[in-house]
C-alpha cells in the first residue's frame, strides 16, 4: 500500500477511508479481528464512514467504470470477493475491501488490467489472511514466497498453476465456515474460538474480556458484554439460531493445517484464530507423544507434562484431528491426571473421550466407562450416574472393570462396607486413584455404622481389616483424627475401639462433614 490510492479515492469516496489495514510493512501486527464488523448493527468508532454491505460491489463497479473501462474478468473477480461463501472468518470485510481496492488500483495504474489472470488471482481476503499468517511467522519460512502485494499481482499470470492450488485449498476451508454467517456477531466471537467450547465460564469472566479489549474499542466491548447478559443463560440454546432462519448446524471454523515442526510447545489458551505456523501437524504430534511418554517416565514432572498435553490437545482440536491417535492422547492424559489426582483435567479428558468413543475410534472405552462410574460415585452426581448406567451395553457389563465399578456402586448404595473395601483392595486399572478420593468418606460412614451396631468394643485389628487400612497404626490414626482420644483404649494388650453412642455420634458428625457436596474445578 505504499503507493496510496488517489484515483480510487477520488471517485468512490463513500466507501473509502476505511481504517488503513497494516500490511507486511508493520510486522508487529497481531491479527485479533475475529469478527466481521459489518454485521454489527452499531457504527464503530474506529470507522470514519460506515460501508454499505450489499451496495458496495455494484457501487465500486460502476464508479470504476466511469474512469477506466474494466474488463469483465475484473468485474467477475470483484463479484467473487463479495460472495458469502468466499468470506474467511478472521478477515473483516473492511480489510478485504481495502485490499481489493489496492489490488485493482495498482493494476489500473500500472496499466496491467488486461494482463493479470483475474480468474486465478487469489481473492483479497485470502491475501489478507496469508499476509497475517506470514507476518506472525518467520518471513523466510513462509511457503508462499513473495507477499501478495498489489505490485506482485502481476506475477500471477505467469504463475497460474500454483496460485490456483492456493485458492482451491482455501475454498475447502471457507466452505466449512459458510453457515456461520447467520449468527449475530456476539455469537460469532465464541463460535470462532470453538476450541474453547469445552471451557465454561461465566459471561462476566475476565478471561473473555481480554478478547474484547483486543478486538475493538471499549464502548463496543461494553455493548457486547451487555448483549451477552441478555442471551439465554443456557448454553445449548445459544447454539440454535432461533428465528434468524440460518442453517441449524453451524460448522465450526475450518480446520487449520499446521506447519510447526517443534516437538514441544507450551500451552497457551488461544484468544484468536490459530496460526498454522505454531500448530504442529499430525506426524509431529505423534513424535511429541512419544517424547512426552519418555519424559513422563523419566522426570515425572506433572506441571510440565500437563502443560504439554494441553497444547497437544489444542493442536489436535484446531486441526480437527479425530482418530485413534486423538483417543490415545486423551486416554494417556486422563491416566496421568488421575495418577496425580488432578480431577479437573481428568474430567475434561473424560468428557472428550466419551464423545470420541461414541464415534468408535478405538481406544479403551470400557476402562474409561468404569472410571466414569467411579468418578460419579465420587462427585455423587446421581443424575449423571443414571445416564452413565443407561449408557452401558450388556457387553460392557460383562467387562471386568465395568463390573467392578458397578459392584462398587451397588455396595455403597446398600452400605455394604465389607464388600466395598474388598473391592477397593482389588481395583483394576487405575480406578484405585479414583477410589482413593472417596475411600475416607466411606470409612467414616462405615465407622458410624460399626459404632452404632457393635457393643461394647471392637479390636483395632478388625477395623484395619474391614476398612482396608494398611496397618493398625494407620487405622488408629484415622480414628483419632475423626473422633476423640478416649475412643481408643488398650485392654489386655490389644487396642480397642470403644463403640456405642458417643463414638457413633462423633463419626456421624465427621461423616456428614465429609459428605458435603464435592466441588471440583473443571466439573461441568
Amino acid at each position, binding site marked *: 500500500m505504499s503507493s496510496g490510492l488517489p484515483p480510487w479515492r477520488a471517485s468512490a469516496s463513500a466507501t473509502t477511508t476505511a481504517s488503513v489495514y497494516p500490511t507486511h510493512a508493520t510486522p508487529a501486527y497481531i491479527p485479533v479481528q475475529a469478527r466481521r464488523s459489518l454485521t454489527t448493527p452499531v457504527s464503530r468508532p474506529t470507522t470514519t464512514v460506515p460501508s454499505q454491505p450489499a451496495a458496495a460491489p455494484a457501487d465500486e463497479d460502476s464508479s470504476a467504470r466511469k474512469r477506466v473501462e474494466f474488463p469483465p474478468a475484473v468485474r467477475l473477480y470483484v463479484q467473487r470477493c463479495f460472495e458469502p461463501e468466499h468470506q474467511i472468518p478472521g478477515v473483516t470485510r473492511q480489510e478485504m475491501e481495502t485490499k481489493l481496492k489496492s489490488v485493482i488500483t495498482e493494476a489500473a495504474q500500472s496499466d496491467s488490467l488486461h494482463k493479470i489472470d483475474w480468474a486465478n488471482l487469489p481473492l483479497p481476503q485470502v491475501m489478507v489472511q496469508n499476509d497475517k499468517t506470514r507476518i506472525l511467522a518467520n518471513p523466510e519460512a513462509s511457503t508462499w514466497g513473495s507477499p501478495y502485494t498489489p505490485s506482485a499481482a502481476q506475477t500471477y499470470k505467469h504463475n497460474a498453476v500454483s496460485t490456483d492450488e492456493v485458492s482451491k485449498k482455501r475454498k475447502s476451508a471457507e466452505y466449512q465456515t459458510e453457515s456461520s454467517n447467520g449468527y449475530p456477531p456476539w455469537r460469532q466471537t465464541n463460535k470462532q474460538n470453538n476450541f474453547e467450547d469445552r471451557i465454561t465460564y461465566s459471561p462476566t469472566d475476565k478471561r473473555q474480556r481480554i478478547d474484547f479489549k483486543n478486538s475493538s474499542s471499549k464502548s463496543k466491548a461494553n455493548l457486547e458484554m451487555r448483549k451477552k447478559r441478555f442471551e439465554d443463560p443456557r448454553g445449548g*440454546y445459544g447454539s440454535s439460531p432461533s428465528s434468524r432462519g440460518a442453517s*441449524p448446524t453451524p460448522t465450526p471454523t475450518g480446520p487449520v493445517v499446521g506447519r510447526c515442526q517443534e516437538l514441544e510447545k507450551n500451552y497457551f489458551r488461544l484468544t484468536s484464530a490459530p496460526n498454522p505456523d505454531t500448530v504442529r501437524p499430525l506426524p509431529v504430534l505423534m513424535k511429541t507423544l512419544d517424547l512426552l511418554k519418555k519424559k513422563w517416565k523419566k522426570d515425572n514432572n506433572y506441571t510440565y507434562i500437563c502443560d504439554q498435553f494441553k497444547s497437544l490437545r489444542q493442536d489436535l482440536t484446531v486441526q480437527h484431528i479425530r482418530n485413534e491417535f486423538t483417543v490415545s492422547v486423551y486416554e494417556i492424559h486422563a491416566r496421568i491426571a488421575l495418577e496425580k489426582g488432578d480431577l479437573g483435567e481428568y474430567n475434561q479428558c473424560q468428557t*472428550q473421550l466419551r464423545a470420541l468413543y461414541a464415534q468408535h475410534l478405538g481406544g479403551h472405552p470400557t476402562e474409561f466407562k468404569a472410571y466414569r462410574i467411579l468418578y460419579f460415585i465420587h462427585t455423587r452426581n*446421581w443424575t449423571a450416574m*443414571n445416564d452413565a448406567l443407561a449408557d452401558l451395553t450388556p457387553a460392557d457389563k460383562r467387562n471386568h472393570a465395568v463390573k467392578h465399578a458397578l459392584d462398587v456402586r451397588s455396595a455403597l448404595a446398600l452400605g455394604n462396607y465389607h464388600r466395598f473395601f474388598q473391592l477397593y483392595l482389588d481395583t483394576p486399572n487405575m480406578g484405585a486413584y479414583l477410589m482413593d478420593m472417596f475411600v475416607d468418606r466411606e470409612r467414616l460412614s462405615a465407622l458410624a455404622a460399626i459404632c452404632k451396631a457393635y457393643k461394647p468394643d471392637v479390636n483395632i485389628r478388625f477395623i484395619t481389616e474391614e476398612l482396608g487400612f494398611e496397618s493398625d497404626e494407620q487405622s488408629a490414626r484415622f480414628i483419632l483424627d475423626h473422633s476423640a482420644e478416649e475412643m481408643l483404649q488398650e485392654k489386655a494388650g490389644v487396642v480397642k475401639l470403644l463403640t456405642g453412642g458417643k463414638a457413633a455420634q462423633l463419626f456421624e458428625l465427621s461423616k456428614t462433614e465429609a459428605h458435603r457436596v464435592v466441588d471440583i474445578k473443571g466439573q461441568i
Partner: protein
Amino acid sequence: MITILEQLAEGQRELSGALVAAALTPVDTPTDPNRLRSFYNFSNAAQISTSIRNYLNQACGRVKIPKQELNAWIDLFSAYWKVIGELLKFEESPTRASWVQVFDNWRDLANLLIRGYSNFGFENWTISCLYVVGKYLRIFASKADAEASAQISVAFYQEDAGTDFGKSAKTEEAARVLNRMFTLCLNDRAPLEASRKWGVYYMTNLLFKTYFKINAVGLSKNLLRALSAQAKELPDLEDFPKSHIVAFKYFVGVIYFLDENYGEAEEHLAYAWQLCHRDATKNRELILTYLVPCHLVNTHTLPNKRLLSQSPRLEALFRSLCDCIRKGDLHGFDTAMTASEEEFVRRRIYLPLERGRDIALRNLFRKVFIAGGFEETKDGQTPIRRTRIPVAEFAAALRIGTHADSRTRIDIDEVECLLSNLIYKGLMKGYIARERGMIVLSKGGTAFPGTGV
C-alpha cells in the same frame, strides 16, 4: 359447512374459550373427517384474511369486537389456514410435506397469539387457545426434530464431538416460545377474575414436558423458582382445574425424585395420586411408577396386590420384585433386578428400587429370629422370644437366601456388616457382640420395628 369457522364465530358470540380453542385444534374429528380440508378450501392464500373478515362480519355482526382485536384474530386464523395447508400436504403429496414447515408455521401462529394477548387485548376467557396452541407447538416440534434427525443421520458427519447439537433444535425453540406463554400468564396483572394467571400451571406443565424431553430437567427448577416468587399473587392451588394440578404435582414430584429427595417427592406424588381422575389409567400408572419406589424407600412398605392388579404394566414392573422383598428372597430379588434393569434404568427408578434389598434382607433375618422360637420361661409368664442369636444362624439364612452352593464362601464378617447396616438404618434393634459371635436383639417386640416382632 365449515366447522372451524362456525366454532370461531360461535365462540366469539358466546364468549366461549372452549369453542375458539376447538376451532384452533388442527385435527380432523370422527364426526367431521373433512374438517381441515373444508377450511382450507374456503379461500386462497391471497384472500384468506378478507374471506375470514367477511365471514365473521356476517356471522357475528351484532357482536362488537374491537377493531384491533378483530384484526388480530383474523391474522391468527390466516396463519392457522397456512398451517393447515402444510398439514394437508401429508395427504396430497407426502414427498413435499415437512414437519419442519408445519412447526415453523405453527410457531408463527403461536407468536401471533402471544401478541394478541400482550398487544391487542385478547381476553382471559380465550385462554384455552393458549393451551391448544402450546400443546400442538410441542407436538409439532418433536415431529420436526424426529424428521430432521432422520435426514441428518444419513448425510451428516458429526463434526464437533460431544454435542448432541441440533438433535432437538425445534423442541428447544418450542421451549422458548412456551416460556413466553408462561410469563404471559404468570405476569398478568389484571384482577384475578379476568387474569391469565389461571393458565400458569398448564403452561408450566407443557414446559416441564418439553424440558424432560430435551434432557434439561435442571431448567424446570427455574420455573419453580418463578412460581414460588409469585406465590402470593397466585390463586389457591385448589381453585385451579384439577387436571392442571395433577400434572403439575406429578412433575414436581418427579423432579424431587430425580434429586434423590424422596421425602418431598412422595408428598407431591401422593397429592397428585389423590387428585387424579380414577379413569385416567395412564396418568395413574405414571404417578405410581415413581410413588411406589418412593414409598418403599421412605416407609419400607410395599404396594398391596389390589393396587398393582389395576394395571398390567405396573404388575409387570413391580410384582416379582415386591414378592421377593416380601418373602425375603434375596436370590429372586437380584434376578428380578437384573431382568428389568434396562427398564428400571430408563425410567430412572433403578437406584431407589435397589434399596429394596435392605427390606428383603430384613425380612430374611426376621425369619431367623422367628425360627429361633422362645426362651424357656417359668410357669405363668408370657413367653419371650430368644433374643441372643449366633451370627452363624444369620449366615446360614444368607446361604439359603442367596442360593449359595457348597463352594461359595459366606464371610462371617460380611454377615456382620449386613447386620450392622440394618441396625444402623433402624431396621433392626439390638447390637453385635463380636467376641462372642452373637447378636443381641432388643426384647419386648421391638427387635424388628414395625413388623410386629
